[in-house]
């Protein structure tokens, strides 16, 4: 009987079992601790799916890459013959082709309110300075000898703390690291409330954290809101052409939101549309983590380097805000610079909470949302720069 009927027990490795534990932990974090559940639950389940031997949902080549998907004509036969699985198809047509991360960014644009950034354009400077972590980690990762230049750039961009640009860049430059990098990026975004406060406390005095800012930002007209995404897209596209797909989708989504005549499209883009794409992304990314690909020194290094990236990103934003304070009469609370590490809206919430602790009269949330959104634009620009330099 057992000659005809094959169970998976005999093919289980210790690596698979360890991956089950990791998957279980991610699912637990998502469900019990509500940490990025929209992504961690599908990623955790994707890890389970790919680590159950003989399941065939995601087939790997001997070199550790997802098996190549044939053209549409031969697709069905290849699935039937067990040469590829459903998740191979999703990976090839959704992620390798960059379709899913870009469409998710469209949805993110439709959810983004840029008014705080428009009201205080210096926010862009904080968003740019907060990319310091990306470049510091690029240097460390590359000089460690564990990563080549392209891989180091993908590890670094975790510090931008923005999912779609991270997935987009890694799918293009280092597809083999897509699983661990995406997992670490999204997990650490959820850990921003733990990672940022010690760095902020270390680099600011209590007096600086207590600097009062008027709660109201200037009024932003509807016309300004409409002009903003179009202008930003055109200028960014001219300066960094490789960022066009990311910034184009982001700003198009935002235009749908602010135009006032495409509400239904904006609602669709920011509703079920982005939800479907997000769980497809999560599931497929999870399936990129079979034990033999995930359990490596590179993965451990990525986990460690991401902390460095977040710390330097936070520091960069803080230092930029302190620099601006040297030139302005009405002082800025330097903590809002730290929100340039986009992680929308977690880092802005961290600033709000710490601001109220230092000075209960302070209400910094809207001030911090400006650098928060600018950080998302900055990370897309950085992804474009990396693609231009390394591809």
């Amino acid at each position: 009987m057992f000659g005809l009927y094959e169970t998976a027990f005999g093919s289980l490795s210790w690596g698979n079992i360890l991956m089950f534990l990791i998957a279980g932990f991610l699912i637990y974090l998502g469900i019990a601790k509500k940490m990025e559940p929209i992504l961690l639950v599908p990623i955790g389940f994707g890890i389970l799916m790919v680590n159950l031997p003989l399941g065939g949902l995601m087939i790997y080549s001997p070199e550790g890459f997802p098996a190549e998907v044939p053209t549409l004509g031969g697709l069905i036969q290849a699935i039937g013959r067990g040469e590829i699985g459903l998740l191979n198809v999703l990976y090839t047509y959704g992620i390798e082709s960059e379709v899913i991360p870009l469409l998710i960014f469209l949805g993110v644009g439709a959810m983004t309110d840029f008014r705080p950034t428009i009201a205080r354009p210096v926010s862009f400077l904080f968003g740019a300075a907060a990319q310091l972590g990306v470049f510091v980690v690029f240097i460390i990762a590359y000089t460690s000898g564990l990563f080549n230049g392209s891989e180091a750039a993908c590890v670094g961009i975790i510090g931008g703390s923005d999912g779609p640009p991270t997935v987009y860049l890694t799918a293009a430059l280092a597809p083999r690291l897509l699983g661990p990098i995406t997992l670490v990026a999204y997990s650490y975004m959820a850990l921003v409330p733990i990672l940022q406060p010690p760095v902020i406390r270390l680099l600011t005095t209590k007096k600086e954290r207590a600097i009062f800012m008027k709660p109201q930002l200037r009024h932003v007209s509807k016309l300004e809101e409409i002009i903003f995404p179009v202008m930003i897209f055109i200028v960014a596209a001219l300066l960094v052409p490789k960022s066009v797909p990311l910034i184009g989708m982001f700003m198009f989504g935002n235009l749908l939101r602010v135009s006032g005549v495409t509400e239904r499209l904006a609602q669709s883009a920011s509703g079920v549309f982005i939800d479907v794409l997000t769980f497809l992304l999560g599931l497929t990314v999870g399936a990129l983590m079979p034990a033999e690909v995930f359990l490596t020194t590179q993965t451990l290094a990525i986990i460690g380097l991401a902390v460095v990236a977040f710390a330097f990103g936070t520091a960069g934003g803080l230092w930029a805000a302190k620099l601006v304070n040297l030139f302005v009469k009405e002082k800025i609370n330097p903590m809002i610079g730290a929100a340039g590490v986009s992680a929308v809206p977690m880092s802005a919430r961290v600033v709000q909470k710490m601001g109220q602790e230092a000075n209960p009269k302070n209400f910094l949330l809207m001030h911090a949302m400006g650098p928060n959104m600018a950080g998302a634009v900055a990370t897309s620009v950085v992804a474009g720069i990396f693609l231009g330099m390394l591809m």
Partner: protein
Amino acid sequence: MIDWNLVAEVAGGGFGITILVLIILSLIAWLVGLVMQKTKAKPEETAAKDK
């Protein structure tokens, strides 16, 4: 073998370009805001004078 030229180009150049691009974007956002506020203020001034 570490290619230090690559490190300098990508880390130094890349960060420099990022700062420069974002400064340009902030200047544009500031200029658009300035023009909008001026053009909004003008009709209000004219209306006040007419009264």
